[in-house]
């Protein structure tokens, strides 16, 4: 009985400590940013592996999600004779919700887990410790570029996702199902507001980019340096960032659109 209570307390303390460590870690890696001359090529390299290589999966899934919303929306709306509203439905659901959230989830699976595994393996093979020994700050050299790369990439990926999704929706709605193209676009443009919808979607993507990369990089840096520890850390990255993204999405939606 006493042991159970003690274990409960230990796990609570451990999670508070983990939060504290991640906060300190965040502070250090953000402060470690300057020295643009050496860091810029590193950032480019990370942008390539985090952003550019995620583009394909984002484009393909954006296309299919747009197509599927269009198809589903059409089958429902055609009963009310207002199938022109498909454009508005596709654009609003993509721009407000789906593109930031789905992009962040895919990003956590595609890039976040890779970041965690990479940094975790560096820790397990004592590369990070070696860097510290020769006087190179691993936070500045390894973590900061990866962090910024994720932070920059996710909003861009999310915008690409929206555009490709709308295009896919148009492909199905206009080319295949025969909605009149003019009213498809006009309805969309009349209902999507730049400040209200597009900008809020981008703000969401920025927040998600920050959170997902933070979790990924921290889990890698903080993992137990064994092969089992790395695999656990990678799993944790995907689970934590998915939960964080979905929870934050509700919070942000309530703040932005809920008239609180």
């Amino acid at each position, binding site marked *: 009985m006493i042991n159970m209570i003690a274990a409960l307390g230990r796990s609570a303390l451990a999670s508070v400590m983990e939060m504290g460590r991640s906060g300190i870690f965040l502070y250090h890696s953000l402060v470690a940013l300057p020295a643009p001359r050496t860091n810029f090529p590193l950032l480019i*390299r990370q942008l390539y592996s985090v952003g*550019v290589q995620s583009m394909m999966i984002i484009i393909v899934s954006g296309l299919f999600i747009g197509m599927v919303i269009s198809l589903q929306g059409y089958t429902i709306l055609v009963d009310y004779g207002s199938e022109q509203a498909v454009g508005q439905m596709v654009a609003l659901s993509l*721009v407000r919700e789906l593109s930031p959230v789905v992009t962040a989830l895919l990003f956590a699976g595609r890039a976040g887990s890779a970041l965690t595994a990479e940094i975790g393996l560096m820790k397990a093979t004592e590369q990070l410790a070696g860097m510290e020994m020769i006087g190179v700050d691993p936070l500045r050299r390894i973590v900061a570029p990866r962090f910024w790369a994720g932070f920059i990439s996710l909003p*861009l990926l999310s915008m*690409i996702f929206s*555009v490709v999704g709308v295009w896919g929706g148009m492909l199905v709605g206009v080319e295949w199902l025969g909605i009149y193209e003019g009213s498809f676009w006009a309805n969309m443009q*009349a209902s*999507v*507001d730049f400040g209200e919808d597009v900008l809020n979607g981008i703000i969401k993507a920025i927040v998600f980019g920050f959170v997902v990369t933070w979790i990924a990089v921290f889990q890698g840096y903080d993992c137990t340096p064994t092969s089992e520890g790395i695999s656990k850390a990678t799993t944790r990255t995907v689970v934590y960032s998915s939960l964080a993204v979905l929870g934050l999405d509700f919070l942000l939606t309530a703040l932005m659109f809920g008239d609180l």
Partner: protein
Amino acid sequence: MRMRTLELGVGTFMLAGLVALGVLIVNISGLNPAGSKQSYTLYALFENAGGLTQRSMVSMSGVAIGEVVSITIDEQLLKARVEMKISKDVDYLSYDTSAAILTAGLLGEKYIGVTVGADTEMLADGDTIIDTQSSLVLEELIGKFLFNKVNE
């Protein structure tokens, strides 16, 4: 060589993101350049402005010429007072112009349709359109229909 392909890839990625932002602004949200263009203000008094919202379209013969800025109650006349921003190039709205609240499609948005009259004097900044037709309220329409049926 390796670095160059990297830079090229990242550059393409950034460019794709910016192009996407551009498409989002222009094509999808249809950010109206008329909003930033020169415009003047007109008012219209409606018995009922139900369903009309801010940024609703003001159109003439189906062409957008402006948008609704605000909807308030006129405290003296107890009517809805709609403030509209009309593009400056549209300076041919005569003094007896009429405005009606119309619906785009069956379930569509409400918008204001403007029909020009025959007067030679033109509406200027701050004028009010008096000849108006309110939005269609379905309940009232059904009520009238039933009332007529009873009378028959």
